[in-house]
């Protein structure tokens, strides 16, 4: 499948939506990219998820932290370019105050994404997350992504720490 071709099926996107609902997530602060746009079409159909359109990714992280402090669960849905913007707020809010924070990240620029201009950030994302001590898990396809989301949401609550679950277009199909 071409990386920017709309997937004919959205089984993965529907599985993500269902898993977020089952995990008790109610808020989804997000900055879109192409792949997230496809996912959002499913997320916005949910009766229990509220998508919060934000102007910059750091805001999404702060909103998720505020929600957690208020007793709700959120999922920050952003591209890896935006995740790379978030180093300071992850260190100085999420990690400093030990607030659970779950990221669902469209991972552009890895081997599954032939678009050349995403490649530099694709190469730098995982080493950066490792340097930031942010746990990173790659989605393992539409059939597994729901289970991975439920596990990830449980993990951030237990660990009081950030976790990024990254997906590609293939995981939405």
């Amino acid at each position: 499948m071409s990386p920017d071709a709309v997937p004919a099926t959205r089984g993965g996107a529907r599985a993500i939506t269902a898993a977020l609902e089952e995990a008790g997530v109610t808020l989804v602060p997000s900055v879109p990219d192409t792949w997230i746009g496809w996912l959002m079409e499913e997320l916005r159909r949910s009766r229990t998820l509220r998508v919060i359109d934000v102007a910059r990714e750091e805001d999404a992280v702060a909103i998720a932290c505020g929600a957690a402090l208020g007793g709700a669960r959120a999922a920050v849905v952003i591209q890896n370019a935006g995740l790379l913007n978030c180093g300071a707020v992850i260190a100085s809010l999420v990690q400093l105050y030990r607030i659970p924070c779950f990221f669902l990240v469209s991972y552009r620029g890895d081997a599954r994404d032939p678009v050349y201009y995403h490649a530099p950030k694709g190469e730098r994302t995982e080493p950066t997350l490792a340097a930031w001590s942010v746990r990173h898990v790659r989605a393992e396809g539409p059939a597994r992504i729901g289970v991975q989301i439920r596990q990830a949401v449980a993990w951030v609550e237990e660990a009081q720490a950030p976790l990024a679950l990254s997906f590609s277009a293939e995981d939405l199909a």
Partner: protein
Amino acid sequence: MSVARRAWLDALVAALDPARDLLVAGLGANARYLPHLPVRVPHFALCDAMGAAIPLALGMALARPDRRVVALEGDGSLLMNLGTLVTVAAAGAPNLTALVFVNHHYESSGGQRLPAVPADFAAVARGAGLPTAEKIDAAGDLAAALARCAPGGPALLVLPTAYDPAEMVPPYSERPDEIRLSFRRALQGLAPHPRGGGGTTRPRGDTRRRAP
């Protein structure tokens, strides 16, 4: 005309409703004063994460529509994240009110001046889509202004604040874990977690926003 920060904070603390309000303070002098004030509502203070107070309060407001969330932010912090006003307006949380303390200085890092433009934050907020944004000129008017905001937010109040290089701003005296636990317990109606509190005052500039 500007007002001493402590006068704003005293008026704010007196105006907050323990049955309704939650308080979020951005990094800097407001957060450093809070442990020394008789704050009767659950409150969460940042000691870093510059620019995060308002979006943090927005998340709290969305999670707790039964409470009003008041966010305290400095003009330097808001300038770092001005786009958050659009996010706030779009989210439309009616229970969020932001107070912006405008003193034209990066107070916590030693009093450096902000970019030398007299930005009209109320006009910026209205331009970003906030239905209520106004400047308050006297501490005695703050309670009435907060009451006006209560039903129709999100709102932003601009508080012209005197910059006094000799002011003895207390140091941070609570650890982040204490702050988080105390906030959560207070929100659940439990007895407060023992907080650090107290501490002596030190001249401003004893903490730095960024490592030198």
